[in-house]
Every structure is written in structure tokens, then in C-alpha cells.
């Protein structure tokens, strides 16, 4: 009860600060006035994303609070299908997207030629490690955490290595390796940081495999599984709504997957696209995504951290991009074998 009251008080104070600082924020640079005027004249943009539609709908809504004149039309598809669509449309000369937003930087690196030069006003504030091309920007930066169902787990794990304990036999859910860039980052982290034998030990606890983070988090809430490594942004909204879930960032490190987002050369609404990305990459946009959606940021100085993420304790872990590309096929095949996942 006490902590609730404190939280409520803190929220009110936070709101007060936010309101008080609103005029100051208006001065944040979203682009030169001519760009904003041109974007408003275009009036819309088409946004292709591999992120979940529901999450991106919230981003669009927030963007529209600042720029209500610009309508964002979204096409959402899972990673593999989105890439096929972009490639096919581009080859036929019918790429409709004004912004392409993708979680797998390796897949995007093959398409760099489709994109135009673009940099946000605060380009210098970004961590260069998060970028694979000067044209593609880490609009969203996702971070892994471990979550458990408080109704089912009385003796919760505290570290990544705890997930190999036999006491959690058949209780853990996992996203399989082949699913895309974010999961690939996690399994790379597991092998490179937690040890060569981590996969085998984890596999020995008979985890249930899911095709992506969303069904995993749903299964966790329903109690189909009790514990799962999850992208923080896939489970945080459920905790916020009151689901019986606790989330923590393990001390060994938190694997981080920056997106690659760019504006195609063929964009029909380039100014609206630039303004949208400028806003998403701005301190205001990133702060919104951290606080409301549970993202991290690739800004060198994070404006805030998600709840429970203490940068002094938890170290964000970025994969080396050359290894990210080079090791993928072999390691995923080995992972499949270790976990008995049938390709």
C-alpha cells in the first residue's frame, strides 16, 4: 500500500515536471521549419515495420500529438515477410514505404542501396556501435530481460545462469533462434558471455519453444509457462496493466538489439518521413518509447532507464556486427540441434 502511494506521488510529481518542462521541450529540434512545413504539406507517410502493430500504434499516436497534420499509415509484417515484400516491391518499382523499420540489421544491410542519405538533427548523440550504415538509424532499441509469473514461481531465478537449474524443469519458455535478429542477439550473448555449454544446460531443462516474443509473453501471463527470457518491451505493457508478472535485468548483462530504420530513395513523402524519424530519434521520442513501451535507447546518454534497469549494475551488451553476420548460419543450426528444434 505504502509503496503504491509513493508511486502515485512520484507519478504526480513526474507529471508535474513533465508539464512544467513541456514548453522547454517544444524547443527540441525536430528539423528546420522548411522541413516541417514541407512535411505538413505532404500530410502523410507510409510506414513499414517489423515491430508489433499495437506498439507502433502508440508511437504514431504520440507523434500525432505533436504533429497532428501528418497521418501515418502502417504496414506491419513479421521480419522475414517484410523483407520479401520490400525486395519485391522495390524490384517492381513499386516500393510504397516512406520509412522501413526492421529488427534484423543483417537483413537490412543487404538493402542499404535502396535507402537515401538521412541523419536526424541529434545524430552526434547516437552510439555509433548501434549503426550498420550511416543511412540506417536505431529508431528502436530493444533489451532482453527475464520475466516470471508471480502466481507460479515462489523461488524466482536471479541470473541468466539460474535458468539452467533443474528446479525449473519444463517451466521455462523460449523464443527459437531462427525467429529473427533480436533472438539471434540473445543466443549469441548466451554462448559468448555465459559460456559454450550454456545452451546445452538450458536445453536440459526442457524449455517450451515459441515462434516469437509475443506468444511467449502471453503464455507467461496465462501460466502456460512460468519463466521466460523476454524482450522487456514484450512483457512490460502487461505488467503495467496489472498482470501477475515480475521482470528483472540479470547481472551478467542485458543483450541489446538496435533496429535499422531508413528512408527509401523512392519515398513519395520524404519530408514527412524525415520528420517522423527525427521525432522518433529525438530525446522526446526515445523517452516516450523507454517509459511507455519498455525500450532502451542507443543515445549515448539515456534520458531515462526502464524500471529496474540500473546502468551501474546491468551492462547493456551489443553484439559485434561482423560476428552477428558471420556466425549466424552455423550457430543457429547448432542451437536448433541442441534444443531439438526441427527445421
Amino acid at each position, binding site marked *: 500500500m505504502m509503496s503504491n502511494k509513493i508511486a502515485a506521488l512520484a507519478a504526480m510529481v513526474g507529471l508535474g515536471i513533465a508539464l512544467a518542462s513541456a514548453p522547454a521541450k517544444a524547443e527540441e529540434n525536430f528539423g528546420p521549419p522548411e522541413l516541417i512545413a514541407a512535411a505538413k504539406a505532404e500530410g502523410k507517410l*507510409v*510506414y513499414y515495420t517489423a515491430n*508489433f*502493430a*499495437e*506498439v507502433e*500504434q502508440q508511437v504514431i499516436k504520440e507523434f500525432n500529438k505533436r504533429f497532428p497534420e501528418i497521418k501515418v*499509415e*502502417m*504496414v*506491419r*509484417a*513479421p*521480419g*522475414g*515477410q517484410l*523483407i*520479401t*515484400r520490400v*525486395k*519485391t*516491391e*522495390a*524490384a*517492381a518499382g*513499386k516500393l*510504397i514505404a516512406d520509412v522501413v523499420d526492421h529488427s*534484423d540489421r543483417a*537483413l537490412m544491410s543487404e538493402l542499404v542501396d535502396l535507402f537515401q542519405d538521412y541523419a536526424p538533427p541529434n545524430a552526434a548523440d547516437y552510439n555509433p556501435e548501434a549503426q550498420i550504415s550511416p543511412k540506417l538509424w536505431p529508431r528502436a532499441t530493444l533489451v532482453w530481460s527475464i520475466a516470471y*509469473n508471480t*502466481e507460479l514461481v515462489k523461488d524466482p531465478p536471479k541470473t541468466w545462469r539460474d535458468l539452467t537449474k533443474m528446479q525449473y524443469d519444463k517451466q521455462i519458455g523460449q523464443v527459437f533462434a*531462427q*525467429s*529473427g535478429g533480436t533472438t*539471434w542477439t540473445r543466443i549469441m550473448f548466451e554462448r559468448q558471455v555465459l559460456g559454450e555449454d550454456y545452451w546445452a544446460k538450458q536445453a536440459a531443462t526442457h524449455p*517450451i*519453444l*515459441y*515462434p*516469437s*516474443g*509475443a*506468444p*511467449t*509473453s*502471453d*503464455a507467461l*501471463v*496465462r*501460466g*502456460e509457462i512460468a519463466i521466460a527470457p523476454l524482450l522487456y518491451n*514484450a512483457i512490460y505493457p*502487461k505488467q503495467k*496493466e*496489472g*498482470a*501477475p508478472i515480475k521482470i528483472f535485468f540479470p547481472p551478467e548483462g542485458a543483450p541489446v538489439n538496435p533496429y535499422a530504420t531508413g528512408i527509401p530513395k523512392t519515398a513519395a513523402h520524404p519530408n514527412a518521413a524525415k520528420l517522423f524519424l527525427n521525432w522518433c530519434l529525438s530525446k522526446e521520442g526515445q523517452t516516450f518509447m523507454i517509459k511507455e513501451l519498455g525500450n532502451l535507447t542507443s543515445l549515448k546518454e539515456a534520458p531515462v532507464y526502464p524500471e529496474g534497469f540500473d546502468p551501474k549494475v546491468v551492462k547493456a551488451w551489443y553484439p559485434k556486427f561482423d560476428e552477428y553476420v558471420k556466425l549466424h548460419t552455423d550457430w543457429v543450426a547448432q542451437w536448433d540441434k541442441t534444443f531439438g*528444434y*526441427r*527445421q
Partner: protein
Amino acid sequence: MADAQLLDRRIEVAQSGVEGRRRNVLAGAWIALLLAILAFLVIYPVLTLLLGALTDTNPVVDGLSLSHLSIGNFLTVLSNPNVAEALFNTLVACGGGTAIAVVIGLLFSWIVVRTNTPFRGFIAAASILPLFAPPLVAGVAWSILGSPKTGLINTVFKWAGLEWRVDFYSLWGLVFVFGIYYAPYVYMFTSSALRNMDPSLEEAAEISGASAFSTLFTVTFPLIMPAIVSGMLLSFIVMLGIYGVPAVLGAPANINVLTTYIFKLTNWSPPLYNTAAAVAIILMVVTGALVYLQQKVLSGRSYTTVAGKAFRPRSLDLGPWRWLTFALGFLYLFVVVVLPMLALIVAAFRKFMFIRDAAALFDMRAYSLMHFNAIFDNPLTLRSIYNAVEVGIITAVVGGALAFAIGYTIHRTRLPGRRSIDLISTIPVAIPGLVVGVAYLWAWIGIPGGLYGTIWILALAFIARFMPDTVKALSTSFMQIHRELEEAAWVCGKGTLATIGTIVLPLARPGVIASMTLLFVLAIRELGSSLFLYTSNTMVMSVLLLDYYEGGNIGKTAAFSLVQTLLLAVLIGGANWLSRGAAQGGVVQGIK
């Protein structure tokens, strides 16, 4: 319209019987036109798909080149033990499902047509209700009910102190759900056959001393065997192509069937479309073999159950047993409609689906409208409903007209080339929706004139994909109308178009309206081929539903499923009501 006029002219000329050559030219033009439409809708996309399966390239990105041609994809696929396992699972799930479907379908058609069971009309309606449930919705509902850990059925068993537990995350779960949901296909075929059967043979058997039971198995069922075989194969083929049910129930236990395997291939990073195309070709071969088998079994037999003699189908007096058959009907309705609807209602109104025990199920504090508020807060929801209805109507009208033209040409004319038309219009039944979506994308994106990005590309894909279903559904109506009625009109000097207008269309009207309604429902439900063809402006309900499901929100998925089900019920009810009015109007006009 142009088609109809052409046909009209052809027939007028044929009637005059003077200018034989000109008649041939026009007949040839009509066949050529149909073949051209089919080439665009079916052949061209299938060829792109075949090319995709035989190369390692994207036909649009890398151009249509034959330089990379190899059977490498097929070899990879065939040598992969997991494909063999997926194929095995597919055959078990669909085979078992078909067995259940045949038992249920046959039982209910017998109950409805041949017995004096009370509330038969109600049982008849219940028997086709599952057709309206999108497979993904059925899968989600049964995972809420039948999950081994959190399923409501197990929760209730535990509450009742029973030791029983069910596990629907298994091959048997798949078999059961397939069986109960696809029984209507068997029902539709067998009930009309039973209704149209001359009962004199059954009477003969009974006079000779056979019991009602043995008459059923030695006379009745053998007589309607063609209908049983057709219904059986159709339900098997439909199950082969279903993605939603095995995706939800198979995934937690790592059970793959061919469709989920194909979906995985397209969804992996990087996606393996060419391999997916190769797996799809395997699926097509299996389906093709079944269609061939069906033709083989049915060829050389007479379907004639409708003779020139008037009769009234017998109705068996079951005595007190009629309450047992009624209870069976009610049980089916309960399992296939009431239980899943309850599951969806619980999921849609509950904040979270964590249910500790049966008592928690009735804790009203856990219920709210938050999922409905969330989905209607999303501007995509209303747009997707609007788009889905628009696509559904276009598909139903255009597809219905095309199917009528094709069906009439196949069954009512002796034009050369009609067999090829029959064959080509059957091909799409064999291609899984997901793969056909890629094929249409590859085939049609390059067409000048901006087809891509409009509602029409979706509608065309649905028209092509469901052509076999519509043509087959309409064919039944054509077969039921005796030629002599048409001939009478011809003798009276009416042209072919006039004959179609005054004889065929009014008589086939219930069939035409039923086919169009079916097409509308299928178009609204269709997911696989929509996935690649929709754009920001043309998002449809099924895609948004998958999005909610993949977004991991079972509450929103269930809420949107309820909205979709309600909408379908209202639209179909409305269409039914309208068509009834129209049919009566037609009859009245006919009498005047």
C-alpha cells in the same frame, strides 16, 4: 456483361443454325476468353510459383531467368527428415479428422433428412455453423479450453474433483478439432444426396426382412457413396490447407504440419521462400493425387438420384430414441459452438487469462471492457472491417458471376475446351493460401496500371483461390436442373441467354446465392493470401486478427474474433433474409 452479350450472340447464331462458321468463331472466342481469364488468374501465378520452387531467386527481384534452374530445393526438401515428419503429421491429422468428420457429417445428415427427430431445422443449422469460424479463431478458442496446463476444461475437471485431464496440444487434439470443424463439408454433400434419393430400394430391403440398421449400411449408404466420397475428399483437402488450427495447437508441442512448416519457412530470418515453394509443390501433389482419386472413384458411376418420378423421402419413426438423436445434435452444437464461444467471451472480457481455479473464473472484478476499448481505439480496426466487407462483396459478385459462366460452360454446353476449363479451374484448391499469396505477389505486382496496393488485387486473389469451391457448389445446382426444361425453352424459340435468364437462373438462384454467400464468408475469413497483398490502405480483418494474435494479446484476439463472428452472423443473416425475399418475389413474378 461483355461475356454475357457474347454468349447471347453466340447462342442466337446457334439457334438460327445458318451461319455455322460464324457460330464456331464465336464459340471459340467465348472459350478463348474464359481461358484467358483463367490463365491470368491461375496458370500464370502457378508458373511463377513453380519457377520459384525450381530456382533460388525471387522472380521479381532477379528477373524471370531460367539460368539458375535446378531441382536443388526439391532435393533439400525431400531429404529433410523434418519435412517427412511434417508430412506424416499432416496425413495423420487430416486422415483422423476426416474420419471423425465423416461420422459426424453422415450421422447428422441422416438425423436431419431421414428421421423424425424434434427440432431438425435447428440441428441442420447447427451442422453448418462451424463453416463460419475462421480457423485461427477456432484454434485460439480450443487452446483456451484444452491447454494441458491452463485449459478451462481441465480447470473445471479439477474443480469437480475429477481425475480426467485433456491435452489438446497434441496430434489427437488436432484430429478432434479438425474433425468437428470440417464435418459440415461431409454434411453438405450427404444431406442433399439423402434428400434426393428414391426410397423405393430401402423399402424393398425392409420388405425382404432387413432391419432398419442393416438397411442403412447395405442400401442407403452404398447408394450415396459418391456423395460420401466427395465430402470426405473435400474435407480432407480443406484440412490440408488449414494454417490457423495447427499453428495454435501444434506449436506448443512442437508438432509441425506442412502448412505451419511453410509458414515458418517464410517467417524465418532470412526467409526461405524458394524452399517454401518446394514444400508447397509437395502439398499440391498430395492434393492433386486426391482430386484424381476422387474423379476415378466417381467416374463411370451414375449420380442419378433425381429421376422423373415424384417421391417423398421417407422419414423413420425413431420412437423414444428420437430424443437421443436430438441430444446428439445438441451435444454437437454445445461442443462446436457454445464451448468455444464461452472461451472467447471469457478471454475477451477478462483482463488477464491467468485463472487460478474455477472460482477465479467467476470473480467479476477480473472482467472489463478494456480489450474492446483497445481494439476500437485502434483506427485500423474500423478500416479493416470496412475493407474486408468491400473485398467480400466484390469477390462474391465478380467471383459468383465468373463461376456461373464457367459452371454453365462446363455442364451445360458441349463446347470444345470445356474440359480444360474444368481442370484449370480446379487447380487452386491444391495450393495453400500462404504460398499462393507469394505467387500472386510475384505474378501481379509488375502489371502496369497499379493493381498492386488496391482492394482489387485481394479480390482477384480470392476469386482465383476459391474458384474451385464456387464452381463445384454451383455445379450441383446445374446438375439438378434437368436438360428438358432448357430444351423446352429452346423449342419455344428462346435464345440461350433468354433461356439462362428465364429458366436456369431462377431455378439455380438458391444455389447461386448460396455460392455467393459462401464466397463472401471465405473471402472475409481468408488469411494466407491476404498477408502479402494488403497494403496500408487495404488492411483486412483477417490480417489484423493475426496481428493481434502474433502480438501476443489473447484478450484482444478474442475480442476481435467476437466482433468478426458477430459481423459475419449479421451479414449472413441479412443476406439470407434478402435472398429469401428475392426468391419469393421471383416465384411470384414467375406465377404472374
